[in-house]
């Protein structure tokens, strides 16, 4: 009966419901990243990787693991978070969380929290799969997990915005396809940007994904193309930007309330 300052039952109920949706389709949810990762290793690790020299003293197969994890983390974060909030809008069930005693913070915590959990879980599955192909060592496990969570949270917040902005399922796909995937492939997931010739190297430095992948690789191998501090700061900057947009969305009711 008491009206607490924090609706923990509400947050937990939504989180569980969202996770349930994920767990019900766990095999398709996990099969995709496992198969994709395996293919990457068959193609890049064995076929091409055997002809590639080590990068910064790291075996090429091991070098691409952090990049692969980030690649999947971006996509899964955006996909899960945007889908998680777009689905109730599409089905019309959004009326319920909107009419429930839940603050904007609690709603975001529940939906984005579930998406972060899913995306992080999938990238850990990728790490495990990769470990079957190449020996992966993690120099800074604590920072690795922290970085993983930070990036997942940031991209899930971004996905949440996409899910509210999108007017249909096509638009839901546009942002990941047109922006995130190209930036990731050009973001040094499969090579060190040091190998690029000059104007390209400088141009690449304007790609924010470079900082994320490079920073994440640092937590594994202790070497990075860019300063790790810049990586973390850039991520935080993007996170704050997403939070500001979400704050505005709930303040104005943009595409949520007529």
């Amino acid at each position, binding site marked *: 009966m008491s009206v607490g300052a924090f609706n923990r039952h509400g947050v937990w109920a939504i989180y569980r419901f969202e996770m349930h949706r994920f767990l019900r389709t766990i095999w398709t949810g996990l099969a995709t990243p496992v198969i994709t990762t395996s293919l990457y290793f068959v193609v890049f690790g064995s076929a091409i990787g055997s002809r590639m020299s080590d990068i910064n003293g790291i075996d090429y197969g091991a070098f691409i693991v952090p990049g692969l994890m980030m690649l999947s983390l971006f996509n899964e974060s955006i996909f899960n978070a945007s889908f998680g909030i777009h689905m109730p809008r599409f089905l019309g069930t959004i*009326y319920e969380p909107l009419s*429930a005693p839940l603050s904007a913070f609690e709603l975001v915590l529940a939906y984005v929290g579930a998406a972060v959990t899913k995306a992080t879980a999938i990238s850990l599955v990728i790490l495990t799969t990769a470990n079957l192909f190449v020996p992966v060592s993690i120099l800074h496990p604590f920072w690795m997990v922290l970085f993983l969570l930070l990036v997942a949270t940031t991209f899930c917040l971004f996905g949440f915005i996409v899910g509210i902005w999108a007017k249909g399922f096509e638009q839901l796909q546009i942002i990941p396809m047109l922006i995130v995937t190209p930036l990731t492939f050009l973001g040094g997931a499969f090579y060190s940007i040091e190998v690029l010739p000059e104007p390209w190297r400088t141009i690449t430095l304007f790609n924010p994904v470079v900082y994320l992948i490079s920073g994440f690789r640092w937590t594994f191998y202790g070497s990075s193309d860019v300063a790790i501090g810049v990586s973390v700061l850039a991520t935080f900057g993007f996170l704050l930007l997403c939070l500001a947009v979400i704050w505005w969305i709930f303040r104005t009711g943009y595409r949520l309330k007529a």
Partner: protein
Amino acid sequence: MENGETRLMEPVISIRNLSKRYAGGHEALKNVSLDINRGEIFALLGPNGAGKTTLISIVCGIVNASEGSITADGHDIVRDYRAARTKIGLVPQELHTDAFEPVWSTVALSRGMFGKRPNPALIEKILRDLSLWDKRKAKILELSGGMKRRVMIAKALSHEPDILFLDEPTAGVDVELRRDMWELVRQLRESGVTIILTTHYIEEAEEMADRVGVISKGELILVEEKTELMKKLGRKRLTLNLSEPLTEIPANLSDWALSLGADGLELYYDFDANADRTGVPSLLRRMSDLGIAFKDLATHQSSLEDIFVSLTTDRGGDGGRAAHRTNGRGNGDRENNGTSGRAGEAE
């Protein structure tokens, strides 16, 4: 400071000068003020597009008001939304469901969202009461429309609201289920829940409501006790099928509120069915004195539907639907309605 006694006397929902303009510029609600009494069943009637759903959506926090203020159980729905919304349950008009989820988990989700700790026993009871227990594990998309409607009701009941909005709960529901639903609503009222429902079935309002509000083109044009309304407007009409057409109503009959059908063959007499002297015998006597013969006669008691139609068509509401039924009706009672409609504003 808060005296329980006076709290109970206060309206459970108080709407003040509520207006809503949608983004397109459409004015869906115009300066609506309405009080809902604690524990009553309030029926909101009005033609399609009148603004019923808009009104409900604003109270529930799904649509933003353009102007005005609302309190639910004394809590401002914007400033103190947590306390206000905890009290309110909503069964929306549209069947919006988590189609791919099983019945049980979506009902449990609703309870959680409203900040209530899990209570499987209660959810079981609700599902059993609504004859959904056998379907608890079924995906909602496998259910029929009537069952989906009941799932929506189960979701709203799962968090034990004190105030329940039912937006056309019986739309597309068969007769038997409709009876069950009425029974459920009565039970809820007995347990102290305030119920606000919208409906297009007038007999539903007539059957269940304590009070009726009529909304047309965004304006609340009448709020009245149902029995009072029936009494006040429970007019009877005597229809006389004349043997010979009349071109006008004879001056000798001016004591009676008569009107003439278009072809001059039907003479209508509207009278108060509750009055001691209806004036019917004396009218018939006077007519025979004047030699006006009739072949047949019939009386008709106006229902809420007649009242409703006359009100909304008078306002230029929903087209000319059934306008012919109101042609001969004395203008007087419509005037009455218009002014008594503001009862909700009196404090």
